């Protein structure tokens, strides 16, 4: 069995041992329903309280009462968006971006059918949001603006504080929902300083297990619950609390807060090493995000005139896991909507690979990828029908280096 080198942390992450440890009591002996009236349930209800405080701290929310536990990032987004719109039925305009995650985009497609007007703000060729376009789009009818903090495919960061200022200055009643699934644990999040009304995160993107998420809803924002039933989560999300997973999310949030410095320095250093390693050794590689500001762990590189799935298959043969924006891997026949919104040229879009690191990524692993990748790319490139174009590209690159 070849060694596993996992560079697909934007898809999901490994559960931290400390997180698993924090969960174990509630999977075993501490199984009480946290709402019960006997002493036996104390530990469970305390675990949830503690976790709520830790998530509050990760997001720098004012009050832990503003944190709702959900089952995933998608549920957080659905609860926020549908909940806020159901509470305020008068305004029928929504603004979002062309590069949101499908869990948000598909929901807006549904809402459009129900009579909402939705504007999709574009990005430039580096994936940076067009704030001017956003500014022009907000009007009195705008109920909601929904923008991701960091993009899952490119890692590009949106300036949430500035976005909030723009939105609120044009319409103070417009609510701002931020999908922070890819930001949590990678960069500092401050919902108060940034003027965010609602914000969603997902545990499995920062070393908690799959199937647990959280939604921040500030005390000024009212939502109609998506899941109706018992009084759990202050009536905002019914269903007996998932104590072990909530405890795990709490622990993961605590570790994430502590680890931000490491992300900003070490993870970033390794990501940059990988990036320069690839770009300097492979002539048909291009960084799809240019100089855009990004989360420290993500790199999206396009390999021209070759196709991403084939690269991934060869990588997988030597134990390296990454992902691709190519049509073939998604099964959707269309290449990534994010890279298309950025107008990544067709020569590179199908051969784009996303590398996403984590705090568990080691220097050895990065060195191994840098060592092995050029051979794989050469092999795949050698069977491409675009040999003439490739040759021209190679000559162009050599000239550039020479200057």
């Amino acid at each position, binding site marked *: 069995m070849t060694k596993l080198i996992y560079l697909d942390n934007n898809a999901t992450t490994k559960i931290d041992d400390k997180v698993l440890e924090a969960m174990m009591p509630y999977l075993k002996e501490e199984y009480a329903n946290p709402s019960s009236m006997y002493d036996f349930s104390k530990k469970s209800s305390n675990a949830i309280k503690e976790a709520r405080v830790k998530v509050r701290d990760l997001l720098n929310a004012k009050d832990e009462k503003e944190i709702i536990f959900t089952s995933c990032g998608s549920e957080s987004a659905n609860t926020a968006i549908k909940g806020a719109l159901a509470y305020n039925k008068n305004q029928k305009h929504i603004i979002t971006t062309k590069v949101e995650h499908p869990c948000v985009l598909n929901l807006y497609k549904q809402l459009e059918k129900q009579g909402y007007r939705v504007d999709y703000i574009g990005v430039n060729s580096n994936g940076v949001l067009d704030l001017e376009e956003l500014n022009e789009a907000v009007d009195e009818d705008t109920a909601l603006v929904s923008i991701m903090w960091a993009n899952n495919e490119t890692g590009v960061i949106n300036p949430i504080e500035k976005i909030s200022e723009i939105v609120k200055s044009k319409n103070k009643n417009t609510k701002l929902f931020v999908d922070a699934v890819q930001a949590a644990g990678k960069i500092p999040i401050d919902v108060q300083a940034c003027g965010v009304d609602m914000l969603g995160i997902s545990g499995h993107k920062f070393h908690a297990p799959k199937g647990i998420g959280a939604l921040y809803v500030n005390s000024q924002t009212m939502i109609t619950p998506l899941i109706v039933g018992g009084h759990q989560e202050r009536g905002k999300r019914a269903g007996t609390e998932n104590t072990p997973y909530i405890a795990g999310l709490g622990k993961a949030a605590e570790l994430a807060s502590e680890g931000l410095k490491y992300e900003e320095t070490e993870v970033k250093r390794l990501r940059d090493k990988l990036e320069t390693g690839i770009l300097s050794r492979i002539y048909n590689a291009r960084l799809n995000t240019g100089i855009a500001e990004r989360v420290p762990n993500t790199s999206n590189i396009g390999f021209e*005139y*070759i*196709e*991403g*799935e*084939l690269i991934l*298959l*060869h990588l997988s*043969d030597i134990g390296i896991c990454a992902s691709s924006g*190519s*049509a*073939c*891997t998604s*099964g*959707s*026949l*269309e*290449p990534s909507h994010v890279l298309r919104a950025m107008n990544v040229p*067709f*020569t590179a879009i*199908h051969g784009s690979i996303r590398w996403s690191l984590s705090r568990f990524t080691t220097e050895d692993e990065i060195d191994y990828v840098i060592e092995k990748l050029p051979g794989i790319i050469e092999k795949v490139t*050698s*069977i*491409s*029908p*675009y*040999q003439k174009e490739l040759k021209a590209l190679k000559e162009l690159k050599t000239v550039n280096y020479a200057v």
Partner: protein
Amino acid sequence: MWDYSEKVMDHYRNPRNVGEIKDADAVGIAGSLTCGDQLKIYLKIKDNIVTDAKFQTFGCGSAVASSSILTEMIIGKTLDEVKKITNKDIADELGGLPPEKMHCSVMGYEALEDALKKYKEEGYIDLDELNNDNSSDIQKEKIICTCFQISENMIWDAIKQNNLKTVEEITNYTKAGGACGKCKEVIQDIINTYYNKEKSQNNILTPTQWILKVNNIIETQISPELQKDGGDIELVDVKDKAIYVKLKGRCSGCKNSTMTLKNFAEKILKDTLGSDITLVEVK
């Protein structure tokens, strides 16, 4: 992760016959950079035999495997044999492809078809063309799916070669309908037209062709089953939709003979010839 067969994996890991033939006798191209896959196939042809074939592919694992195995399938074959290869043959040779990847085998077929067409234009005479029953369909170059540049003809071929029945299947095999989706209605129309045409084909047969067709079904599908039980069936006459048969051997005296006729023979005939036929037993 796709569920690729061992053979597919072997072929994308170690593709055979990669490269370009500089003095090729025919070059075929399918797909494009925009669509995410392109295949180029180069042929050397001598005395109507493919003496060498090479390929270059921009595409996923199954596209490379389809191209690679296709070159192996055609080297040493006569043009007449090569012409008969369908996308299904390519997929079968690979031990099957995931449904969503069938379009890769179709691309192989299209590149080959393109190469043969170009070769023909330069002098090769297609003897089969004379009794080709669907030459009229070859006109259908109209683009149906603008996203992927898929013509009506390509959709028609995919339906015919693979017995496709739904729009989703068409998308898996040709990509048509897989992007904006606005062509899906037209694709449904094409499917409807195809199957209506197939049904109505019984009506345009001459009386002799019709009788031959009935007889063929009785001989190949019904008679062998009855023979297993020591009986048999014989076609006596066909008057339009009425089919007259005689039961023989064990069947003739058998109490269940009417049952045999109704439940078995008539069902097969109705399934293949249309529900408006009647089966009449002649004693």
